[in-house]
Structure formats: structure tokens, C-alpha cells
């Protein structure tokens, strides 16, 4: 993998830090009038998801990370691995629990997901921003009630629990924003 100098650090560049692939978010140039120049760089560690600031000497180089995002279709979970398929090549790839992490609750069979590969192996699985899931359990709400009273918890087919308005019932399919975990609407039939 190529090395990148701080001059090349732009948002989106993938670099290696502490043995972990990272995404550059921001790069700020700092220099005392009579002193050495530095770059204050904000990065996200791709495996842990941690965002941190690191300061480099301007002109220093770091190793690039062989990281790429690919959109794959989620097929099934065999108990240990989560299997995804490339719809063009039919090539399949398996991600472990660590890569899927908390997002397991948004994995819907036959939905597309973004899989982040590092050196060819999946490290992060990101669901689509919105997924549609069936409610498997929620308290019956009062008839005629509309949104705005704080709602009630509902368990979805994947096990995820979200707050829904009182009028939504077990068996209905709802649309959820996976980034915030919030109810958006009833699914369009």
C-alpha cells in the first residue's frame, strides 16, 4: 500500500494508525510563526468506530489502508457468520459478528448493505439508511390516538426495539431510520 504525506490528507482518505484502518475526517494546518508546522487531523477508526484527533508533523507520511466499500445483498446468518452476495458476480462473502456489531438488528434478508473491506475482509457492515421491518410485539394502543404522545416500545422481526406511535399495531410493517433507530412511518404497501 502507498504512503501518504500529511499534505495529501483529505476527508475520505484511508490510512493505517495503531494497526487499525482509519478514515480521515478533517485536516487542519497549524504553525507557530517561528516553529515547526503541524497537521491536526480528525480521524475515525473504522473497526472501533472511535473518532479522535491526532497531530502530525507536516510532511510526515503514514501507510495507506487498503479499504473499500462495496454494496452487497444480505442473504442469511448460519449461526456464526453473516453471508452477503454480490448481485453482479454472485460472489459471496461472510462477515463475522464483530463486523456486523450492533447493526445486526437492521439486517433484513435480501436488502442491500454496504460492506467495508480491509485487505479483502469485511470489517464493518452498514445497513441502508432506512429499512422496513415487521412489528412482532407491541402493546395494543388506544384507537384514534395519533403520533405525539411519546408512543410505546415495539419489538421488530430482527429483535430491534423502537418507539412507535400508539396507533401502530403488531403485524404491521414500519419504516425505521437505522442511523438514529427512530420510527419514520408505516411502510408503503
Amino acid at each position, binding site marked *: 500500500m502507498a504512503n501518504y504525506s500529511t499534505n495529501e490528507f483529505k476527508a475520505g482518505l484511508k490510512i493505517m494508525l495503531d494497526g487499525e484502518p482509519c478514515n480521515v475526517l478533517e485536516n487542519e*494546518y*497549524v504553525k507557530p*510563526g*517561528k516553529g*515547526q508546522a*503541524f497537521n491536526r487531523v480528525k480521524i475515525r477508526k473504522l473497526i472501533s468506530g472511535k473518532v479522535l484527533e491526532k*497531530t502530525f508533523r507536516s510532511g510526515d507520511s503514514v501507510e495507506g489502508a487498503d479499504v473499500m466499500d462495496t454494496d452487497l445483498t444480505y442473504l442469511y446468518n448460519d449461526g456464526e457468520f453473516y453471508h452477503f452476495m454480490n448481485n453482479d458476480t454472485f460472489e459471496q462473502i461472510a462477515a463475522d459478528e464483530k463486523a456486523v456489531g450492533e447493526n445486526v438488528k437492521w439486517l433484513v434478508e435480501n436488502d442491500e448493505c454496504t460492506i467495508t473491506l480491509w485487505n479483502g475482509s469485511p470489517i464493518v457492515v452498514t445497513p441502508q439508511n432506512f429499512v422496513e421491518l415487521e412489528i412482532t410485539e407491541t402493546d395494543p394502543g388506544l384507537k384514534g390516538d395519533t403520533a405525539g404522545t411519546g408512543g410505546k416500545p415495539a419489538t421488530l422481526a430482527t429483535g430491534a426495539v423502537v418507539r412507535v406511535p400508539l396507533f401502530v399495531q403488531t403485524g404491521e410493517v414500519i419504516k425505521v431510520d437505522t442511523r438514529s433507530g427512530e420510527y419514520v412511518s408505516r411502510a408503503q404497501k
Partner: protein
Amino acid sequence: MTSPSSWQPSSSIETLRQRAQITSKIRQFFAQREVWEVETPALSHHGVTDVHLSAFKTDFLHPQAVEYCPLFLQTSPEFAMKRLLVAGSGSIFQLSKAFRNEEAGSYHNPEFSMLEWYRTDFDHWQLIDEVDALLQYTLATEPLSVLTYQNAFIQYCGFDPLEATIETVCKRACELGFELIANDEQDIDVLLQLLCCECIEPNIGREAPVALVGFPASQAALARLEPSDPRIARRFEVYFRGIELANGYHELSDSAELKQRFERDNQTRLSKGKQVMAIDPCFIEAMEAGMPECAGVALGIDRLMMLALNKSSITDVVSFAIDRA
């Protein structure tokens, strides 16, 4: 707001008008004090040896010469102004452009405006008072306070910068999260600059300007050393709201010592793989002729405007920043 097309100025016309008013206030300030305005060349046959300054170089073809002659755009008007002092100018100021290669960011534009002034028979303390007066006059600031470099490091970094070995500074820098630099940095001054930038600057001068005084002798630049404590130099920097605004000295005029410092700069340049810069013979000769006792300071005008007009980027206060110049 949509981003302006590239023919348009980086800042608004209103900002530029306000800027002009502040500039005229600065001229009034010096007129009241009988410090007169000079102009010195932007192009010179020599650049400076400062390890961390990079000058733009160009080629001059004299109509009666057969070969190009290298010229440098000035990183500050310091040497030319000091030659005027030697020639008998008395106290002078200059509002001019300075040029520094490899510098661009929220607080840096490779071409920027600098206010530099020299006061004969002043020491650095008197000049700090005058910087304070100028800031109160142009920015309506509260009175400036003074903080020693030593106390700043003890307070914010937990060690004495004048006594610490490079091992101590490295260890402390690692603990503070700067292991990427500290792990392989041999130059104690680079580490001190790093900690000053990251741990001290953001914390001082929040309400009123602060003059950081008593820089280590190794960062004396062109300041004389403190006679009672040669570990430190009579150099100061002024900070306000996270911005490094000014850098001043009780000026060193000893030509032999200046020459030594320039040579040391060049050795450091060499060790860092940077180009050696020829020492300006006109400057050395002027110093040999004898510079009057004086103190001098350079203040970043664009940064002053940022503070005055509450702007977060230098591009907001200059007519055309480098990306559209």
C-alpha cells in the same frame, strides 16, 4: 449562503471597508506617537535562515545581464527595516505584504499583511506595553497580561521547559497523546512548539491578550538573551482568543552572535534535509556598523482583522485568498 464564484472576492465588500477603517486607525496610532511609515523591498537577494520559514524564490533577468539572478520574496521586512535603523531612521513602522511558502490554512495565507515596527531605546517590556495600547485602540481589548513561558509549561504541561531533558519532554508529550511525533523527534524545540500549540495556546488569552515572555534561548531567534538568566531570551509572543498575533524582541545587535545563530540555523536546516540559505551580507555589515538599541515586533494584520471582525478564517478578511488570487 451559496459559495461565491471564483472571480468574486473571498470576503464581503462590507468586511473590506471595515478593514480599511482599522488600517487607517493603525496609521493614526503611529502618527500620534511620531513613528513614521517606511516601505522596504518585497524582493531581496537573500532569504532568511529561519529553520521553519520557506521563502518563494524567483529569477530576475536584468536587461544588461546575461544570467538570471535569484531573488527571494521577503518572509518579513525585518532585515531591511533594521538596515534603515542603522542608517539613522529612528522609530519606524511598516504595513506590508510578507510571503511564506508552504503555509496555508485557517490562519495562514502564503501572502499576508504584516505590521512591523521598531522603537529605538525601547526594551521588550516597553514594546509589550505599546502592543497592548495598539490592541486596546484597535480591538477595544481588556489590558494585556504577561505569562512566562516557564510558568505556562508548568501550569498546562506539568514540567519546567528550561530544565527538562528531551527524554522528559518526550515522555510528557506521549502522555498527552502526541506519541506519533514524540516517538521519533530528536529536536526538543519541535516538541516544545508542539505542546505550546496544542496545550498552551488554546488555553491562554481567552478574555484578554496575553504576552508569553522568556522563550528558551534555543528559540531566541533574533532576540538578545536575558543577562540575568541566559537560559531565556528577551522574546515575546502575543496570543488572543487562540490566535498567535505578534512576535517581538529586544533586538540583538551583536553581529558575531547573529552570525553564529544564522550558522546554527543552517546546520539545523542541513540535519532536517532542508536547503541551506546564504547569510545576507548586507544585514551582517549593517549590524557591524552598529544598530541602535531597540525593540521590534511583527503583528499579523489579517489575524488582527479576524479578531476585530469576528471571522474564523483568514480567507474571510482578505480580498482574494490564494485559491482565487
